[in-house]
């Protein structure tokens, strides 16, 4: 049996966007994946073992039937065009071309456009909008950093190759001895697998990250701080602050431990502010651990096309932005939206019950390649080809380095790229609305 090995494949799972994967293909089936972590391997392999959708589905009065793509698109277009406040959500697990068509669709519809960052690093965006964000590409960290801090994140579970590829273990230009040249600090509420690899673990009390950051910043400026803050002793705080001040290049990576716990964007605000402060002493950067492989791309594309990275409301014709009002959970929990288009995402699995309840009560259209709880509640389901495996396109890594996704195998018959499906949908919607179809040059 002839085998084909595709090298330097980009992994479409997490924000690490590792681009050194080898995929072995036999008769248009992926039979082996090399270099990838368990998560990446699962994604590549899932295409042949998972619950793949291959036919458009229409759900009427509780019963599901297979329909033609044309019929599915027609139904979907009508539902969306009829809506007064449609939500267009997802976008982080597809390529940038599809995202760009999504923006045009939201614009024509006068809808609310949101990507999954509203439930991952949306708070990081808000913090960046308040105080900025000194950062860099991952190679800067690999080549220069001698102090790595992971705060409220667990890369060993969520970004399994982050430490080995970018931060802790690789040898860098100025860090020839690899891990021996670096100190690793982990700050978390639990002694995670990542923490077990650290030189130093600081266990912070749940929901007290902001206090710990405030104390560290005050201590950095040589103010006196209390004996114990957030469950951490003054001695430990001062020692970590000294480590930070005295390194040559420090890098602070953070995750949902900051963005989801009490304080949310303000935790990130204070963490960024700490890093800003540290630049008066040494070189220090901060970077969010982005989850979905192209959530950074969704932020990027939405921003260059609308000015805003997520939670964009087109109801007045021009983009408006205010998470708290215009993010997916806001419009769902406040029962504002009256239809939804979900692209490459599964909010039913990942949103709180209150939001899911409203979603289940309105017409939903899903574009996805697998059966998920969200496709279960959808009136229209359109099968898609998998970006990064069956479709080329651009994705942005967690440090916003854009990389070209590869096509490794052909999609199953009838499964089109997201951007093609969306283009057809856009055309149909424009027809109903009686407006000229905008030309989406991108992709």
């Amino acid at each position, binding site marked *: 049996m002839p085998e084909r090995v595709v090298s330097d494949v980009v992994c479409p799972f997490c924000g690490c966007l590792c681009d050194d994967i080898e995929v072995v293909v036999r008769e248009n089936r992926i039979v082996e994946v090399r270099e990838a972590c368990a998560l990446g391997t699962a994604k590549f392999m899932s295409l042949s073992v998972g619950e793949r959708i291959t036919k458009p589905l229409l759900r009427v009065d509780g019963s599901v039937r297979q329909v033609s793509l044309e019929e599915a698109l027609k139904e979907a277009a009508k539902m969306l065009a009829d809506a007064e406040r449609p939500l267009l959500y997802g976008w982080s697990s597809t390529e940038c071309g599809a995202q760009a068509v999504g923006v045009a669709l939201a*614009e024509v519809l006068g809808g609310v456009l949101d990507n999954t960052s509203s439930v991952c690093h949306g708070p990081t965006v808000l913090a960046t909008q308040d105080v900025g964000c000194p950062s860099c590409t991952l190679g800067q960290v690999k080549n220069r950093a001698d102090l790595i801090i992971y705060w409220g994140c667990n890369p060993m579970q969520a970004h399994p190759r982050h430490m080995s590829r970018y931060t802790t273990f690789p040898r860098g230009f100025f860090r020839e001895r690899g891990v021996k040249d670096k100190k690793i600090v982990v700050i978390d509420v639990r002694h995670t697998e990542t923490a077990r690899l650290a030189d130093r673990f600081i266990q912070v009390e749940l929901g007290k990250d902001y206090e710990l950051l405030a104390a560290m910043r005050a201590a950095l400026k040589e103010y006196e701080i209390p004996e114990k803050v957030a469950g951490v002793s003054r001695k430990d705080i001062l020692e970590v602050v000294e480590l930070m001040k005295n390194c040559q290049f420090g890098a602070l990576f953070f995750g949902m431990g900051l963005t989801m716990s009490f304080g949310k964007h303000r935790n990130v605000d204070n963490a960024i502010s700490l890093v800003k402060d540290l630049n008066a002493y040494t070189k220090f950067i901060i970077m969010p651990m982005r989850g979905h492989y192209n959530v950074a791309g969704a932020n990027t594309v939405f921003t260059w096309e609308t000015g805003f990275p997520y939670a964009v409301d087109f109801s007045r014709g021009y983009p408006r932005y205010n998470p708290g009002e215009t993010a997916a959970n806001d419009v769902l929990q406040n029962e504002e939206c009256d239809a939804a288009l979900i692209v490459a995402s599964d909010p039913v699995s990942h949103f709180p019950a209150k939001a899911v309840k409203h979603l289940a009560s309105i017409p939903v259209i899903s574009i996805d390649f697998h059966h998920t709880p969200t496709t279960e509640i959808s009136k229209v389901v359109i099968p898609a080809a998998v970006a990064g495996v069956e479709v080329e396109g651009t994705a942005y890594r967690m440090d916003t380095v854009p990389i070209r996704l590869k096509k490794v195998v052909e999609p199953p018959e009838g499964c089109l790229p997201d951007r093609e499906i969306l283009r057809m949908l856009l055309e149909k919607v424009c027809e109903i609305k009686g407006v000229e179809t905008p030309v989406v040059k*991108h992709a």
Partner: protein
Amino acid sequence: MTKHMILIKNGFVYDPINKIDGEKMDIAIKEGKIVDPKKVKEKEAKVIDARGKVVMPGGVDIHSHVAGPKVNAGRLFRPEDGRRQVRPFGQGLRAETGFSVPNVFATGYRYAQLGYTTVMEAATPPLKTRHTHEEMSDTPILDQGAYLILDNNWVIMEYLKAGEYEKCAAFVAWMLRSMKCFGIKSVNPGGDENWGWGKNISSVRDRVIYFDISPAEIIQGLIRVNEMLGLPHSFHIHCNNLGLPGSYTTTLETFGLSDGMPISPKVGERSQNLHVAHIQFYSYGGEDWKTFESKGDEVAKYLNNHSNITVCLGQVTFDETTTMTADGPFEYLLQSINKLKWINRDVELETSSGIVPYIYRPRSLVNAVQWAAGLEVALLTKNPWQIMMSTDHPNAGPFTRYPRVVKWLVSKKAREETIAKCHETLPNRSSIASIDREYTLYEVAVVTRASAAEALGISGFKGHLGVGADADVAIYDFNPEKQDPSREPEALEKALSRALYTIKRGHIVVENGEVVGDAPKRVFWADICFDEELEKQVLDELHETFAKYYTVSMSNYPISEEYLVGSTPIKITSK
């Protein structure tokens, strides 16, 4: 009527490349090109009556931050700017947002409204240039190109330090081709690499940490490489010590480095080997912020004696804007002064960058001096072909203020009105109040289109209205027979702000100041054939660099042509 034929009748034409100075004549367009008016029959063409109007070639912007990673980071972290200027979706146009950091649609539309048709992106870091292309491709109307930041690049610093200019040239050729970029950009040479350690560089003779090379060596090395390759545009630099009191000495030293260097473009007709961007930002004297003063006059004096240097202005417009530059250490300094939010984005092996919002106030002496310094250079440099309009958008102000800058150039009265609003000690720190020169409309046409087209090496088809040129035309509602720019600068500002017509490659894109359509786009890039053997050798060495120090695979680094809407390689055989 063939829509691809347009006859513009009886306008006052300002076309400096063809030495036409306000002559009343017809301009004819066929299939996207300027043709002899005799070849277009009135009945078959769309006729535009330009009687009593100004007709110029489409504007050419040599330096503007309009697309790519730092521009977008600026948009992302300034939602408060995003809501400042909006226009809803409709009439076939996409929605606009943003004042100093407009979205891509607003960028294309607003440039077109000013009568501009060609805009060069000022700086793109190689590793993120795919992003720059994605945005340029998504920007309507404009023809574009981007300058590739190469000066703080490890590979280049190593080659230059070893004196391996040939190899360096082979590498640059590969980089420009792989990144689909137009020319070589330098930003704070050496300073950006030092910023990797939180440090900077303070003179062109300083040494870069570890790499042990000076900015002067980098600058001269890249000028040399630029001319070995014969690129259409010259080496394009953002000097060291930008924004600092006393920086003009560094500027003059940088100027001096180009002395006696060759000028040998293989395409185009430029006469410079050094283009210094946003000259205003380092035309300062003084020891510190208290003694801060303009040295625009000194800079102009140098330019008057050295025709091998061109500059663009980076003119301050007194707006709330967003500063953004690959000069990472400068932005750090700026945020430590104005205490506003700060983004920093260093790029492995290549460069750095930073972004900080900034408000220019006439009552601030420093800001007033900055405003004066830009105008001093513009007005005291005798040859307008060495000068190009820019606000270093959005650094010194948004590009939408170009008509206001023109107002200051053409009218002493307009300058006096602004000086009256400025800090009262400005006259002690600048000669601006004593300058009488007022630009003519011909000179305005030089600095807003002709000089840039020539300096870019694209004057064969851009920046003029001779037969064979791209049919990029701007028509403004200003009657030079009846109106005097010097006395009615506001009328000129208004006319330039909203072109009566903008035509891009034969397509009418603006009518009565409103955008009415799109036009075919082109993205220019240098496709150089230098030395295949040597390039192979260079790439072999490069594999190791990628494997060890980059975080992307070398095979995933180059950008394929499919990323470019209207890919237009400029083919150059250098050897």
